[in-house]
């Protein structure tokens, strides 16, 4: 097992290197660069000399291999560089947004888990009854509604009914929990609801499959209590694909909530990602892609380890 974990950790390195090469090249395939965009704003008389000077300052006049090597060499020293747009360290840009994004991802995941596992299990147990239909309608509605659209509806409802809007500036949970939650609860509900819909349907279908297994019949025949049959023998075996879905969604939430963040004016990783890409901020985009890739790889790794915990039959060599 130790060898397996070590191998998996080491395999992260070539994967991340591949991602690094790909994103570095893809960004530079697109014509134009940050300096052009920066001076395209409004004033119409920026001399070419200024543009060339800025390009040199950002290292954009160097050969591609040199730019790539400088970036990778920096990473090896844990120096992720500075954003070409803001001029601040990428670690700083990420750090001030990570708390918000991580909290939102965790809250949305919590809401999704609280909703999906009981509802999915209940729907499977009450298959083809009104309870099942109601839960299916609830989950299909969640799938059909984009979370940002639900967010817009929530905001409009609050504005029209109460002339109230959640705070637009982020306050840390550790500084003022009430203010923090009053800002975060709505986006967490909007995202968590959609997220729960996916997990509810997954829980229901895997539970239905597990319920038909021989060991479930055997457990019941042995006189095991129904609650124990469902929880211990049913849910524990049905949960593996659900854990996979929840894990991957969690990783996605860290950087993929662009529109939801815009709607609720959340200064998170998703908005930073879009700003970095639209401004051709090479260094920041590269840093963010690496971060998100690392999160995905790491979450996958953790899920794989959880498999063996949840299902003792699974052993890694």
């Amino acid at each position, binding site marked *: 097992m*130790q060898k397996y*974990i070590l191998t998996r950790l080491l395999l992260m390195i070539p994967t991340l290197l591949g991602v690094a090469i790909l994103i570095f090249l893809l960004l530079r395939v*697109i*014509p*134009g660069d940050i300096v*052009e*965009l*920066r*001076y*395209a*704003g*409004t*004033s*119409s*008389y*920026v*001399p*070419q*000399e*200024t543009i060339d000077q800025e390009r040199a*300052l950002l290292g954009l006049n160097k050969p591609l291999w040199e730019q790539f090597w400088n970036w990778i060499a920096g990473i090896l020293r844990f120096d992720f560089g500075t*954003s*070409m*747009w*803001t*001029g*601040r360290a990428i670690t700083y*840009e990420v*750090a*001030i*947004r*990570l*708390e918000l994004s*991580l*909290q939102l991802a965790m809250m949305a995941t919590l809401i999704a888990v609280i909703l999906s596992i009981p509802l999915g299990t209940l729907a499977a147990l009450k298959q083809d009854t009104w309870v099942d239909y109601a839960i299916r309608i609830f989950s299909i509605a969640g799938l059909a509604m984009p979370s940002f659209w639900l967010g*817009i509806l929530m*905001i409009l409802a*609050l*504005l029209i009914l109460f*002339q109230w*809007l959640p705070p*637009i*500036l*982020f306050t*840390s949970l*550790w*500084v003022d929990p009430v203010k923090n939650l009053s800002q975060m609860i709505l986006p967490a509900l909007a995202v968590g609801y959609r997220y729960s819909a996916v997990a509810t349907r997954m829980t229901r279908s895997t539970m239905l499959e597990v319920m038909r297994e021989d060991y479930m019949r055997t457990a019941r025949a042995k006189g095991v209590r129904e609650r124990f049959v469902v929880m211990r023998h049913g849910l524990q075996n049905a949960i593996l694909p659900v854990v996979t879905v929840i894990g991957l969604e969690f990783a996605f939430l860290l950087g993929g909530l662009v529109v939801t963040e*815009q*709607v*609720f*004016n959340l*200064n998170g990783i998703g*908005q*930073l990602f879009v*700003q970095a890409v*639209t401004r051709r901020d090479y260094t920041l985009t590269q840093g963010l892609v690496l971060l998100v890739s690392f999160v995905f790889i790491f979450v996958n790794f*953790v899920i794989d*380890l959880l498999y*063996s*915990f949840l299902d003792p039959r699974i052993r890694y060599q």
Partner: protein
Amino acid sequence: MKRFIAFIALALVAAMATACAPAPTATPAPAPVPAPATATRAPAAPVAPTAVPATPTATARSGGELVFAVSDPPPRTYDAHQETTFALLHPASPHYSTLLRFDADNFPKIVGDVAESWTVSSDGLTYTFKIRPGIKFHDGSVLTSKDVLATYEKIIFASAGVASARKSAYAVVDKIEAPDDATMVFRLKYASASMLTNLASPWNYIYKADLLAKDPRYYEKNIMGTGPFRFVEYVAGSHWVGKKFEGYFVTGRPYLDGYKAVIITDTAARAAAIRGGQAMIEFRGFNPEATDTLVKALGDKVTVQKSPWTCNLTVTLNTEKKPFDDVRVRRALSLAIDRYEANRVLSKISLMGPVGGVLRPGAEFSATEAELTKLIGFSKDIDASRKEALRLLKEAGVPDGFAFTLTNRNIPEPYEPTGIFVIDQWRKVGLNVKQNAAPTYLNDLRAGNFEAGIDFACDHADEPDLQLLKFISVDKSSTNYARYKDPILDDLYNKQSRATDPKERAKFIRDFEKRVLDEQAYQFHILWWQRIIPHLTQVRGWKITPNHYINQDLRDIWLAASQ
């Protein structure tokens, strides 16, 4: 196995705890030393044409924090001398003063800011400014002409490694001097009609000479000015905070205790923030639809200010590509567009506003309606125009029209609806046009990798030197994307720029306008923009101007008791 699971769990908890730790605060400037609380009285009755700006309104009251929305985060540096976006001016202008400024109540009148008065020599070659005494920086030090000199040396004669975005606008300046602490002199190579306008540029923040001497790039990451508000903090991507500077040189100003500029990138979220009272104003503007929604929801709690805008959209034709090298084709394309219909349709749904020529309608030197309607494409008889367009296309050898691509900016407002409108107009004379709204827009225009394109321009003032620059030869203007060389236009540009007699200047401008829009139709205007600012009625003392760069120091704004 359990040990490994425990290890993974611990690692996860540790990672999350690290990430959830309180975020570091932004990288503010080194804390400025608070200035003494005594305000310096503005000098009385300065020599004409300057004036101490606006006297307090009887009902104005002090106190409160203005919260306003900004649609974009500030750019890479805090140095307005090298930046070009309003996203810096809106949060940062309250920290600074300029040599001259526009009087928002009497736009485009220019008044002194740190300049108390000025004189211009009879030959128009020497501008001498007297600097107001007793102006203090936020660290308590006194501003002198040395600071103004250092500022303009940085802008005009930028040292190596320091960018200056508007250096070329001051090519007329031969040298600058500060003979004593209260006097600043600009010596020009030739008389320039736009000199005062350029010196009132909102981008020309006055910096402190000592700081620039130590580090010419100091102002890229730090704030230290003489404006009405001190810098408190900028939290990246979130908000920017300023606090009242008690030592500000205009007595009784500012009224506000402070301000907070909140970055809200989504248009609907900005409107919702105003509707929900989380923001009081947004200074760039909303389109008519969003404004109507706010008015309907808030009634008299919202006030709407409107103005024409010194921004426009033009069609630019790549004269290096066939058939746009043929003047008949270019003229036909201009003739096919009904600008008055564009105004009627687009002004209801977008920022697009009035019909105009090379200068904003209503501005000094702009064409009168009679002059404008004589130019091809600007006639009100669209049927006759389109008939002429068809005739020209036939004469150019393309009687059945042709197909081409219109390169457009991938920004919805106001580019996309305008692109759609223009394409529809061209279809009426048999042209088959596709729109390409790609992120490579600007690069395509600069590289000449386009056939026809929608181009834009925004300036801080109605000044022909600024607005006509785009239309002179490509080797003299980096934003002439039509890529032509026209010595006649270059000559007319220089003549109007050096003409000190307004009548003479107007004549050169009319000739320039006729050549670029009518005779050659290299590039032609579609519409000018309209600026609409809906804000909470509680916000008082701010008057809209025809651009979103000026009147942003917030010193005259005050907050009425909330309704």
